[in-house]
């Protein structure tokens, strides 16, 4: 099995930060706010490996740092510390030492992101097809008819009515917007896809269909995925391994079925016990 991502010691602090930030926050202190400088320790010492074609779940409540982790890895923000190496065939890329152009190229070519809020992943002023076109154009596909046919193909695959390809996605339902987002993220066949609470806020039947779709695509394209969610059901269905986070720290990690059936940490036990 080939490793695709190696994250070590990833940390993020919002605020001025001080020497004691990391020693006075975390699950055992039941806070992520430093009492000395009032900074928020959003993430501390996140370390994990991700293999090709693997789905990793990151689970936790809001404020646990799970979205921060993904935002750092997708370059939406720069971390306070730590490193991440992306393996692309034989090439190794240290994510946080890349210059902005290299970061952009990784983001546009090899990574994909599906946000909880479609507003972040889609440009609502251009058509659904135009959104996919944008990502293809970034990757130097400069043939109009090729762009049209690939956008058509992707939207068919993600079950968006292709008659609506030239409409603005702001007029679509939430589930449909997520499908367009997924189609856009997949348009370059990325080797790493981030999914940030993608089914949160959707009807249960729509959620199930989207999760199905994600797994089908994962099986087809062998895309490695990092799935951020607060929903145990989503992790159970999608992820082979899961990290459980609280107050910016990983409290437990392991095989998903083990996390759910034999949780070791008090917090995970509580989380599993309180799930519907």
């Amino acid at each position, binding site marked *: *099995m080939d490793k695709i991502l190696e994250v070590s010691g990833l940390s993020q602090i919002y605020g001025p930060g001080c020497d004691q930030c990391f020693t006075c926050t975390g699950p055992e202190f039941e806070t992520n706010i430093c009492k000395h400088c009032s900074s928020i320790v959003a993430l501390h010492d996140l370390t994990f*490996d991700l*293999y090709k074609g*693997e789905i990793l779940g990151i689970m936790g409540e809001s404020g646990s740092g799970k979205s921060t982790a993904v935002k750092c890895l997708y370059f939406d923000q720069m971390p306070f510390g730590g490193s991440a190496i992306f393996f692309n065939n034989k090439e190794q890329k240290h994510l946080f030492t890349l210059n902005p152009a290299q970061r952009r190229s990784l983001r546009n070519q090899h990574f994909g992101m599906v946000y909880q809020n479609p507003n972040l992943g889609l440009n609502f002023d251009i058509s659904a097809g135009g959104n996919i076109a944008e990502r293809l154009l970034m990757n130097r596909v400069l043939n109009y008819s090729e762009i049209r046919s690939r956008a058509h193909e992707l939207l068919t695959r993600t079950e968006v009515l292709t008659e609506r390809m030239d409409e603005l996605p702001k007029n679509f339902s939430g589930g449909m917007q997520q499908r367009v987002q997924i189609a856009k993220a997949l348009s370059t066949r990325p080797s790493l896809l981030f999914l940030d609470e993608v089914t949160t806020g959707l009807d249960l039947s729509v959620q*199930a*269909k989207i*999760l*199905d779709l994600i*797994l089908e695509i994962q*099986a087809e394209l062998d895309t490695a995925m990092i799935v951020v969610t607060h929903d145990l059901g989503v992790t*159970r*269905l999608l992820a*082979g*391994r899961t990290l459980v986070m609280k107050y910016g720290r990983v409290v437990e*990690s*392991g*095989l998903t*079925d*083990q996390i759910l*059936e*034999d949780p*070791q*940490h*008090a917090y995970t*036990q*509580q989380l599993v*016990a309180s799930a519907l």
Partner: protein
Amino acid sequence: MIRNQILSVENLSKSFFLHEQKKIIPSSSQINFKAYPGKLIALIGPTGAGKSSVLKCIYRTYQQTSGRIIYKTAAGDSVDLALASDHRVLELRRNEIGFVTQFLHTLPRQKTLDVVAMPLYQQGVSRQQGREQASKLLAELNIPKQLWEVPPATFSGGEKQRVNLARGLIASPRLLLLDEPTASLDAQTTDRVLRLIQRKKDQGTAMLAIFHHADLVKRIADDVVELTLPEKTH
């Protein structure tokens, strides 16, 4: 005759610590046995003796409390399943170790044929080949043909169980864990299942099983491991 064991469970104990209640709940303790290719070991004992826990510890759904679970891989390495990395366990699950539980977790839209063939897909077998093999197994297990292209979510308990069994058997794992594979089946279907299990044994699969009837143990098991109720510690 010297037989090469495929699995050696040594002093395996499992207990649960509930943080909320500050309580230790013992499940299985000091279990010892070995499993061999082509042989079926039945775990017997009263309810609450931790039979399922043993299977789950071997599959790493549970983290054992103490003891060793030494598995000999196809490549000839010895791996302690209690200590192996998550990725190693996932790889073994994909290629060598199967588990048929009493519950079927599937995706809402996945068709029965694909549910069954999934372990083959994961090993890189083509869709067409996978579906062919799945059809054979489903026919053998007496699942009506009109159900093959339907997701199993709406199936009866017995049908779901057979789908689950078919999925567990299809990839011919080297070690197969069976947790009450015939619990909700009628006598005729049970016979069919036992025939299938016997065939897998003949093909060299090592098996660990829990049956709900002593009769079944007599019919199919080569050896038994008896578990007793854990002593109440507190």
